[in-house]
């Protein structure tokens, strides 16, 4: 097993060990043990940077199901490295933070860290798998572990609701994605991403290409909380804050981003890819930032903010895919969008992680996350405040933090759209800068709102559950590191560009690279006076104005009726499905055996008639018919009369007698058709069964023994006539379609010589086909024992008797 596989599996192995360590070391917070693993993994992946930045890749194969081309191929390139560093780096910080955040005595920590490690391993598996099926396996594992983590406080109703919602939505997307993957493998005959990439040029003309593209994007959009699937993310905020910081800002929600980036070389040549991703991304960005302003919960704001930023990254990936339509690299301005996406991905992970931790600290130290109750924490919690300033201003896109740089690059990319001359972007392209700018304005507003409402103003101590004070240093450590990174990346963005960004972009856009060529990414802090800077200034000015007048325009959120929110749609949808399927089963499964028989007979008529007509099988051949004599006619008339009597009889007794008459006539038919054995048996059996019918009749309860005529129902009549007709037609057609002779000749010839008998029927029964007889007598035996059991073992009656006896004893 290679070191890469070991790295992916180590969290799972650790997760197995956690409960044992937990039992052994009760004194120490178990998080300290867990912390070792992500730190080592982080160092391991850091050590791969020199290899990757020179264009190298690490690849290792572990056979899983070779016969189905499903092997665990681990593949580490620039994009994978970026994500592994995020997962392990932020993972370490989150574990450290959680040690101080979660109480060792009050929480079930062993559960928490097992889930967290499962998630970490699954996430590493997602970003390092080259095989689509393996990727899907880990993808679902992230969904499950996320479900467990959101529902961590499972005694709370909201946690369970949020966990269920996120599960339903992400698993829906995951299954769609699986469908897309399978379509891809049908088209290319391979599950390997890199092998499929080689065929991407021919793939585009395949008719399965577009369905595969849409299905895969459904998976990516649900996981990355894009419009309209973002609704699970705000409800996932019921999870413990370390989980929100880790899963719902830095890693899992970026799995969709990863997928889009990873599959760009396969799908991006199609215009639909460009359109869907950029448009959904920009709409998500604008809509979520608009909605973030109305939230009052700190984590609610951050959740919507995450959705908005993910939309931003997504739209950048979409816009960047346009670069594939322009061959030249030197002046390919659209490539900048991909760089911006990757850069913002890193920036977002840093500042959003730190902001979530800040929100957690505020919650932990004051007992509330409601910004209406908070305020004036600046003097009480100076360090937390400083981190929050760095984080929020970076989120708002202000200099000198890293958010400013990626925001500028974002504006450059959306402005470049104006020059695009494909996909009718000449007319619709203007939409992008406008939406991007609007979204940025709202981003600015909620960032400022988050900062000022929490930390400035008057301290409302009477509304808080606890007396606020600064958090312990251990809890502050992780957000400080992330905040420091925000500043470092802000001032020295180029330490990232050569080591991380270039190889990541190279793996998103491999087709643009010639041999020994590499993307020259250089992020300039100051790029002169241009339209982007003006847009940023506009964002700040308009943002401040809008923030100051917030109270006046806040009511526009109430204009939009609550009935039309996506959450209402989701809840209504769940409700309607539940009620609909309930009423459907209740209507169909009404418990009446009559209805079920009607279904069975109708299906029988329908299927047989359809097949008869479809195969053109109705035939009537009169050549091979025997002559009809007077006896047959007489007996037939008797049987018909008997049957009509059964149907029309008023009393049940008449029906029973008529049925007996029919049975005896059948035995007469046997005599007529020269079947003495059958006639004998039929005679005796008919007698016995008639006696049994009479017995059943005699024991009918007095109440229902009312003699009444069977009511006439048209549907029943039609169905029974239909069944009779169908059977008749089938019988006639089958008789007219004899394709080969009967095998009876063999029996006739060999009864005496081989079986030593004279009675053909009996010889067949006991010798030629004695096997059947053996089981028929077994059936009889089972029936007898069944009757014996039913009559002798009347458990319910016995219980009643016991109860009666007990009552009498009292």
């Amino acid at each position: 097993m290679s070191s890469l596989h070991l790295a992916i599996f180590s969290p799972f192995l650790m997760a197995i060990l956690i409960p044992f360590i937990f039992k052994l070391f009760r004194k120490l917070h178990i998080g300290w043990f867990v912390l070792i693993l992500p730190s080592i993994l982080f160092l391991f992946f850091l050590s791969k940077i020199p290899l990757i930045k020179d264009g190298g890749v690490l690849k290792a194969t572990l056979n899983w199901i070779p016969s189905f081309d499903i092997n665990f191929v681990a593949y580490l390139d620039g994009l994978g490295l970026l994500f592994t560093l995020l997962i392990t780096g932020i993972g370490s910080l989150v574990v450290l933070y959680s040690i101080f955040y979660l109480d060792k005595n009050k929480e079930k920590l062993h559960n928490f860290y097992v889930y967290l490690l499962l998630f970490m391993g699954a996430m590493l598996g997602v970003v390092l798998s080259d095989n689509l099926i393996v990727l899907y396996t880990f993808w679902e594992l992230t969904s499950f572990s996320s479900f467990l983590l959101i529902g961590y406080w499972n005694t709370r109703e909201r946690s369970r609701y949020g966990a269920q919602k996120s599960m339903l939505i992400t698993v829906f997307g995951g299954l769609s994605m699986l469908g897309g993957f399978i379509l891809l493998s049908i088209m290319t005959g391979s599950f390997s991403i890199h092998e499929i990439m080689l065929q991407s040029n021919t793939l585009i003309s395949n008719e399965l290409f577009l369905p595969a593209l849409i299905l895969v994007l459904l998976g990516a959009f649900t996981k990355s909380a894009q419009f309209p699937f973002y609704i699970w993310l705000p409800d996932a905020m019921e999870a413990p804050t370390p989980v929100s910081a880790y899963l719902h800002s830095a890693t899992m929600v970026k799995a969709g981003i990863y997928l889009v980036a990873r599959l760009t070389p396969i799908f991006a040549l199609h215009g639909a890819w460009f359109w869907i991703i950029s448009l959904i991304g920009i709409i998500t960005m604008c809509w979520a930032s608009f909605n973030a302003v109305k939230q009052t919960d700190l984590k609610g704001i951050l959740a919507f903010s995450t959705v908005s930023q993910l939309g931003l990254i997504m739209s950048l990936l979409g816009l960047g895919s346009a670069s594939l339509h322009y061959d030249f690299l030197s002046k390919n301005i659209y490539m900048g969008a991909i760089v911006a996406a990757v850069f913002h991905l890193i920036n977002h992970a840093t500042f959003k992680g730190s902001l979530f931790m800040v929100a957690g600290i505020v919650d932990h130290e004051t007992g509330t996350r409601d910004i209406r109750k908070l305020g004036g924490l600046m003097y009480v919690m100076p360090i937390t405040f400083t981190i929050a300033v760095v984080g929020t201003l970076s989120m708002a896109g202000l200099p000198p933090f890293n958010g400013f740089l990626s925001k500028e690059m974002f504006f450059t990319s959306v402005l470049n759209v104006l020059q695009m001359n494909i996909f009718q972007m000449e007319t619709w392209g203007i939409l992008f800068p406008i939406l991007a700018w609007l979204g940025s304005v709202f981003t600015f507003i909620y960032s400022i709102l988050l900062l000022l409402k929490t930390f400035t103003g008057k301290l409302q101590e009477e509304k808080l559950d606890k007396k606020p004070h600064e958090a312990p240093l251990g809890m502050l450590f992780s957000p400080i590191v992330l905040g420091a990174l925000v500043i470092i990346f802000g001032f020295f963005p180029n330490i990232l560009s050569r080591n991380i960004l270039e190889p990541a972009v190279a793996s998103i856009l491999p087709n643009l690279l010639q041999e020994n060529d590499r993307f020259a990414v250089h992020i300039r802090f100051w790029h002169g006076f241009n339209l982007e800077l003006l847009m940023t200034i506009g964002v700040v000015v308009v943002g401040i104005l809008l923030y100051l007048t917030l109270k006046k325009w806040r009511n526009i959120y109430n204009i939009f009726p609550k009935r039309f929110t996506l959450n209402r749609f989701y809840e209504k949808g769940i409700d309607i499905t539940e009620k609909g399927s309930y009423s459907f089963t209740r209507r169909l499964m009404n418990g009446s055996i009559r209805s079920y028989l009607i279904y069975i007979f109708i299906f029988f008529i329908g299927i047989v008639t359809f097949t008869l007509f479809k195969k053109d099988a109705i035939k009537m051949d009169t050549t091979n018919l025997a002559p009809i004599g007077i006896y047959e006619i007489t007996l037939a008339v008797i049987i018909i009369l008997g049957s009509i009597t059964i149907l029309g009889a008023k009393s049940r007794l008449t029906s029973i007698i008529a049925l007996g008459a029919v049975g005896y006539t059948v035995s007469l038919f046997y005599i007529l058709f020269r079947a003495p054995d059958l006639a004998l048996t039929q005679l005796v059996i008919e007698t016995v069964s008639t006696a049994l019918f009479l017995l059943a009749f005699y024991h009918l309860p007095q109440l229902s023994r009312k003699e009444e005529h069977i009511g006439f129902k048209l549907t029943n009549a039609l169905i029974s006539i239909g069944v009779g007709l169908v059977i008749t037609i089938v019988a006639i057609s089958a008789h007219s379609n004899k394709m080969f002779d009967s095998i009876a000749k063999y029996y006739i010839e060999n009864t005496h010589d081989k079986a030593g008998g004279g009675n053909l029927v009996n010889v067949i029964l006991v010798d030629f086909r004695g096997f059947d007889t053996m089981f028929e007598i077994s059936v009889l035996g089972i029936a007898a024992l069944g009757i014996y059991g039913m009559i002798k073992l009347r458990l319910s009656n016995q219980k009643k008797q016991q109860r009666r006896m007990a009552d009498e004893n009292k």
Partner: protein
Amino acid sequence: MKTSDVILQTMTKVISFIIVLFALHLFFAGHYHPGGGFVGGLITSGAIVLLLLAYDIKTVAKIFPFDYKILIGLGLLFAVGTGVGSLFFGVPFLTHAFGHFHLPLLGETSLHTAVLFDTGVYLVVVGVTMTIIQTIGESE
């Protein structure tokens, strides 16, 4: 008022033997003429039913002091045993053998393992019919 079934009971004493003999005849004739284990079994139980009608369940239980359910198992054992027996001779399951033998008293006789199988059928049918009728008859 006490009813007397003396005619019925006397007739039964005579007729039930005739019925049993007829049943045995049908059973043994089965391989060459209409009849066999199934009908033979049914008619044998018919004789017992006649006894049941003429007397009562307790008396008949005294005449035939065995459990009819065991008869079912015994019959199945016969049927399966005949099948398994053929395996000892290296032939497929349920392969029958027959031959003509000279027996004391009976003289030249045709013997056939299928009769053993049919005995199984006969016993099962008697057991099944009697179990059903007796169980229903005893139930309240």
